């Protein structure tokens, strides 16, 4: 920048912050204004300090116009964050209580259901469809609230339904405690359909 702040040639204006003048004694702001209007006087056209200030003004002007012409491109994650916040705002809060000695702690019920569906999807022979988690009434009122898990699944054609269901039940109870920190006291599994393992997953109804 051509504005010289080290010369000590500041001028007080009505008690405001002193204006730093160029080495030639001109006010850089006025030189910028003249350069923007292409109205440089004789001194400003010949003075190297004013010429440098004018060049700064033109460079800044080009930069500003170039940036103003660029389309705004927010980071890709911003839209996801905003949409997530909008959806969260629209949905009523659906939360499960977590046991904590430090104060209220809660877990989103849809998030907990997604975890349990994910666990079941990783079991061979079963695919989760829906998952409903309902808190049961606390027995003593002090411990964590146990929950009932009701899940609908589809089974691979030919698997032993009883043994796979038992395995899924065990996994859900374990996942409730280990992944969520919520005791699962009851698991209901509805096997609503069968699928052929050779059918691509996206084509299953």
């Amino acid at each position, binding site marked *: 920048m051509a504005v010289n702040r080290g010369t000590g040639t500041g001028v007080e204006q009505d008690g405001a912050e002193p204006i730093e003048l160029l080495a030639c004694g001109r006010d850089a702001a006025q030189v910028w204004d003249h350069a923007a209007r292409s109205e440089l006087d004789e001194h400003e056209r010949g003075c190297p300090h004013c010429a440098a200030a004018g060049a700064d003004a033109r460079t800044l002007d080009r930069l500003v116009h170039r940036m103003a012409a660029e389309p705004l491109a927010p980071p890709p994650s911003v839209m996801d964050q*905003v949409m997530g*916040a909008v959806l969260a705002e629209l949905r009523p809060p659906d939360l499960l209580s977590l046991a*904590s000695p*430090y104060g209220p*702690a*809660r877990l989103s019920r849809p998030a*907990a259901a*997604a975890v349990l569906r994910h666990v079941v999807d990783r079991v061979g022979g079963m695919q989760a469809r829906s998952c409903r988690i309902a808190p049961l009434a606390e027995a003593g009122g002090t411990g964590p609230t146990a929950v009932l898990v009701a899940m609908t699944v589809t089974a691979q054609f030919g698997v032993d339904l009883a043994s796979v269901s038992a395995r899924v039940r065990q996994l859900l109870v374990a996942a409730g405690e280990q992944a969520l*920190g919520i005791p699962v006291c009851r698991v209901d599994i509805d096997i609503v359909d069968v699928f052929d393992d050779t059918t691509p997953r996206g084509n299953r109804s």
Partner: protein
Amino acid sequence: MSSPEPAVRFLVGPVLVARVAAQRACRVPGVAGLRPDLAQALLGFAGSVLGQDRDRLPSGGVAATVDGGRAQVALTIVTWLGHNCRDLAQAVQREVGEAVTDYTGLEVQVQVTIADVLLGDRDPQERDRMQSAQSPPPGVR
């Protein structure tokens, strides 16, 4: 003879409490991030586009109130699958409560809501620990 130093009183505002809480919560292992509400998300969106407030600590996902010597902090966090949600919530409550109390002197109650559990990618910190545990130390063959 020197005059006695004047007593100093300071009041802590809720924005400060929120920023301290957000800073500490993000450092608790298992916290993938904070989930801002709609107003905070829109403000963050505007700030990122306009390039403002780059030197301020973020406070999205945290709501704080201060009343006298007590503060209430509500955090909404996101975690990865593999961290026990109950244990994580307790850890966040403990760590954030201690951090805010240590910094401000306020008595703090921390409320934690886990809004989401990320299933796709595992915790990068955990993944790095697993990889370093599996790879032999330098010089060992």
